[in-house]
């Protein structure tokens, strides 16, 4: 079945509107399962404390740090991850399966272990870090840079997998056509492949950003926890939970609201346009 005819079939199915019962029931269960914990947070939230929490400068600081580091981690993941996804999907090099397994290791690695692993490489006694320290006097742990590195380590595989999927689903004949018309491979990638997979890249970036925003284990291990430098919202939530569970609920809701608002805004402005593509 060609892409065009597949698309026609999908359009027709959409027009019918009805959802088959075997799909409807599990879908409804899934919605309840995913949304109920959220309802729990909203119900138990001490709404009267909300004002005091929101005006607490430390909360603003943690929120700003979270948004900045997650965005930087996403940009870094885009710059490094999209080319990696291309290599995984398009190159014919041997050992691609092994490579794919290796780059998705952070998905299954407990994030705290990831944080320790980053220490062993980039710490001031790490494989690479000891030279950074000796030669340049540059130590990465306990800095905002460390937060971005930890978040990128954990979140980039989400982007790579999404983009690789998009590349595999994209019609390679457009690239072939560009090549026959004389475009070199880099021009083809820029002018043909990238626009084709833009929705996949956008979806991957959103997934990556969301994962980076919620990152806890690798960050608190590798970057530590210091207000203003490395204390992101998930760390602030965890520590609030130790002393003041009510405040932790409020902080969680703030993080949730901000991330939902950002994603919805992006969807309208960016994904909406990409979705209206070919």
């Amino acid at each position: 079945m060609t892409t065009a005819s597949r698309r026609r079939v999908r359009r027709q199915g959409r027009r019918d509107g009805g959802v088959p019962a075997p799909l409807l029931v599990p879908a409804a269960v899934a919605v309840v399962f995913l949304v109920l914990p959220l309802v729990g947070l909203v119900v138990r939230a001490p709404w009267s404390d909300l004002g005091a929490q929101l005006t607490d400068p430390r909360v603003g600081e943690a929120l700003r740090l979270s948004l900045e580091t997650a965005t930087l981690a996403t940009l870094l993941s885009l710059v490094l991850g999209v080319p990696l996804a291309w290599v995984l999907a398009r190159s014919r090099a041997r050992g691609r399966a092994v490579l794919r397994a290796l780059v998705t290791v952070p998905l299954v690695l407990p994030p705290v272990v990831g944080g320790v692993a980053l220490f062993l490489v980039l710490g001031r006694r790490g494989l690479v870090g000891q030279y950074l320290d000796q030669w340049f006097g540059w130590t990465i742990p306990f800095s905002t840079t460390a937060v971005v590195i930890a978040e990128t380590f954990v979140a980039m595989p989400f982007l790579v997998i999404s983009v690789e999927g998009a590349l595999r689903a994209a019609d390679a004949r457009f690239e072939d056509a560009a090549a026959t018309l004389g475009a070199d491979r880099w021009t083809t990638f820029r002018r043909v492949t990238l626009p084709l997979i833009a929705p996949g890249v956008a979806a991957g970036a959103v997934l990556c950003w969301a994962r980076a925003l919620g990152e806890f284990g690798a960050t608190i291990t590798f970057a530590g926890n210091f207000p203003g430098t490395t204390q992101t919202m998930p760390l602030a939530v965890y520590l609030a939970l130790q002393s003041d569970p009510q405040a932790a609920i409020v902080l969680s809701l703030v993080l949730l609201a901000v991330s939902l608002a950002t994603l919805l805004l992006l969807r309208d402005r960016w994904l909406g346009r990409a979705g209206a593509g070919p």
Partner: protein
Amino acid sequence: MLLRTRLALTTAAVLALTSCGGSSTGSTSAGSSSAGSSSASAGGDLSGTLTVFAAASLTEVFGELGDQLEAENPDLTVQFNFAGSSALATQLTEGAPADVFASANEQQMTVVTDAALAEGTPTVFTENVLEIAVPPGNPGDVIGLADFADPDLTLAVCAAAVPCGAAAQAVFADAGITPVPDTEEEDVKAALTKVQLGEVDAALVYATDVQAAGDAVEGIEFPEAEQEVNSYPIAVLAAAPNADAAQAFVDLVRSDTGQQALEAAGFRSP
């Protein structure tokens, strides 16, 4: 006799304690079987599952004592939930089923007693003091608490929200020192890990953590620690599904056997 001698040596004695703690381990386990069989839990008639919620710092000692209770009562299974005291207190107030709660400070025990979840009054069964942990060789040349005000050193303390952080804050306040930490760790083991990895020059942890880390870290005692002695209360919970076993475990912890095991791990008798 040995015990009394040890208690008499208060401040500069933890290192000495460390060395004789090693030699007393043998006598602890040797003495444990006799003390255990004469204790209230003797007879081996306890059965079912005993669930103990205990502060993370008690992991090693309570594990040993749990094994001992199981050995004496073949039908009994002892389950532990080791975590930060405040996390445990939250779990208990949220309805987690447990028989015994041992907290690393009185504040978190109060959370549980205020919710009327404890049976009777909790008793303090052991004490712990802060100590400075440095990587082997002490690369930052740390000598005392005042070094925590040195901006050139990489330093870890616990976050104020967790017990070791609250104690650290109080010690710094007493000593009139304004610390400049690079990280406020989420629990004491995380702070210790950073010392073990050599990523910080010093961390403020408990004497027991230094003891547990063995050769991986060096401990530096400081006199200001005496200002902030941490008391560990233990209580049988009101809704304990296995109240008999719970009481037997609390008795074992408070017995000579339990106290010797705690001392070997760097704790002090109250």
